């Protein structure tokens, strides 16, 4: 990627008591780039993204947005700078129609007080537009979001973040609970976001999902980074072996096995 990174974590560490959940990890994402953050359970993926979206503060190292050092006081600070996180539990209200969920907390209004009201027509039209390619019928936007499939719900959440101007999208295991077709649908939404110039950090432990969509791969193992790799630098097999902590793969890649 030639573009300058929008969001960076440089040399961040996070300690819990004597245990280091993260040690000197560096990651960055540029507009239009998909960075896959891979690692087994307990590798520190969640801790790292929480430093990026303002949920926790790193004990060492810095977070940079657009090249400037920054300290997030909370997730709202990150959100204000266009860093949106799509959580595994999606932050949706199951019984509410899809279009009402899409605009939850940011409802479009029309009319003047006291007749100021939810702009239903606009909300429905915009949601339909965003749901194109989801294999959903137009009328589905009026149904409770609980009636959509897991992949559709995840796609709605991604589309919602993009619609509200996310510059960086952090996706936490978006495909972990999904079947092949459903996962493919979500990944298509990720590609679409990327094509629209959004930087994406995709957290996953599924190499088959990550490799086709990713531009850059960061592998965490026991809280440390095994390195940052361009897609051209390694194969899917090598990536898989790295994730399993087989550090001899690093020599194979000509990287410095500094861990």
């Amino acid at each position, binding site marked *: 990627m030639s573009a300058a990174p929008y969001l960076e974590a440089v040399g961040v560490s996070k300690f819990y008591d004597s245990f280091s959940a993260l040690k000197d990890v560096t990651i960055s994402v540029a507009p239009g780039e998909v960075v896959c953050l891979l690692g087994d359970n307990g590798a520190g993926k969640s801790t790292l993204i929480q430093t990026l979206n303002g949920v926790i503060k790193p004990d060492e190292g810095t977070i940079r947005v657009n090249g400037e050092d920054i300290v997030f006081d909370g997730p709202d600070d990150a959100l204000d700078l266009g860093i949106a996180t799509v959580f595994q*539990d*999606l932050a949706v*209200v199951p019984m509410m129609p899809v279009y009402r969920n899409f605009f939850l907390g940011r409802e479009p209004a029309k009319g003047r007080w006291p007749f100021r*009201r939810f702009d*239903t027509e606009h909300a429905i039209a915009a949601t339909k537009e965003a749901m194109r390619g989801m294999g959903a019928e137009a*009328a589905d936007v009026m149904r409770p979001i609980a009636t959509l499939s897991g992949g559709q719900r995840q796609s709605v959440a991604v589309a919602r973040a993009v619609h509200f101007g996310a510059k960086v999208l952090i996706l936490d295991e978006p495909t972990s609970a999904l079947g092949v077709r459903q996962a493919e*649908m979500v990944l298509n939404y990720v590609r679409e976001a990327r094509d629209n110039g959004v930087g994406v950090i995709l957290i996953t432990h599924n190499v088959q999902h990550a490799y086709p969509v990713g531009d850059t791969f960061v592998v965490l193992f026991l809280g440390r980074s095994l390195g940052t790799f361009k897609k051209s630098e390694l194969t899917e097999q090598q990536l898989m072996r790295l994730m399993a902590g087989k550090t001899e793969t690093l020599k194979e890649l000509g990287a410095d096995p500094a861990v």
Partner: protein
Amino acid sequence: MPAADASARRARGNGFALRALFTRPEFTAIVGTVVVFAFFAIFTGDAGFLSLVMTRNYLEVAATIGIIAAPITLLLVAGEFDLSVGSVVAACEITLSYLIVYAGWAVLPAFLFSVAVATLIGLTNGYLVVKTKLPSFIITLATLFIIRGATQGILRMLTGNSIIDRVRSVSDEDPVSLLFNSSVGPFSISLIWWIGVSLLCAWVLQRSIFGNWIYATGGNRAAAVRTGIKVDRVKIILYVATAVSAALVAAINVYAINQGNANAALGREFEVVTAAVIGGALLTGGYGSPIGAFFGALLFGMVGQGFFFTPLPDVWFMTFLGGMLLIAVVINNYTRTLALKPKGGRS
């Protein structure tokens, strides 16, 4: 019925139309109202159920339930409960009656003062619920007792009695009293209030932005908070709205029977919740309909009045009511499960 739903139905053809109708929260209450009306009309029509007097009667009963059932439905959708409404009615009856009869106030300031008392109670209920994070059932059970006792105690101190008579006689020259005590065509003005409050609440829930926040607050509190909705404020506002509706019912009651009573509206809290639940509201939040509550209250009023025309001794009324509530809840639960069921086999 919202236009959006109508267009959705056109788009999906008849099968979808039927299901959409069937799975609306107010479906059970509307069908129940039709069934109960037909039942009483057929079996007790000759005895006078269909007469204008009787119709006026049950609409009046239904109105005093329905005016509170509409805002309490919004509160239920937001995931909270209010048991104190009956006590608030009594407190406002006494406030209004005392100010008019003993203090010589005009009706408008006396009514506004009772609304202020209700607002204060609503704020207290709401504030206690959001600050303590205890179940609102317990909090408002406590305020039910506190308000009822305080109403009786204060009135005893002031007048040595538990009722205030002649409210209407003292104030029927005051034009403002017509707001609570007049007829519109053959019906009591309470019918207009009831329809107005129900439509307003339905509009707020379905059409306003605040309505979206109400749904989210009760449907998934964590999601609502995460998207920046001030859930505590939503709840407090709804507690105030519920208490204010009780003040309106108090004024209507006082003029209907020419008396303010510290023991008024005992058990009203259960009647309004019954109406709201028959109308499709879910006690766990996130689901409900003020229009459904309207029909729930209408059903309540009809059964209450019509029952006395049946050959059954009137002591069986409660049993009948309980059975009806049970049937309604089971049907509502079933239709809601249907509404939330993912579409089979298609991704």
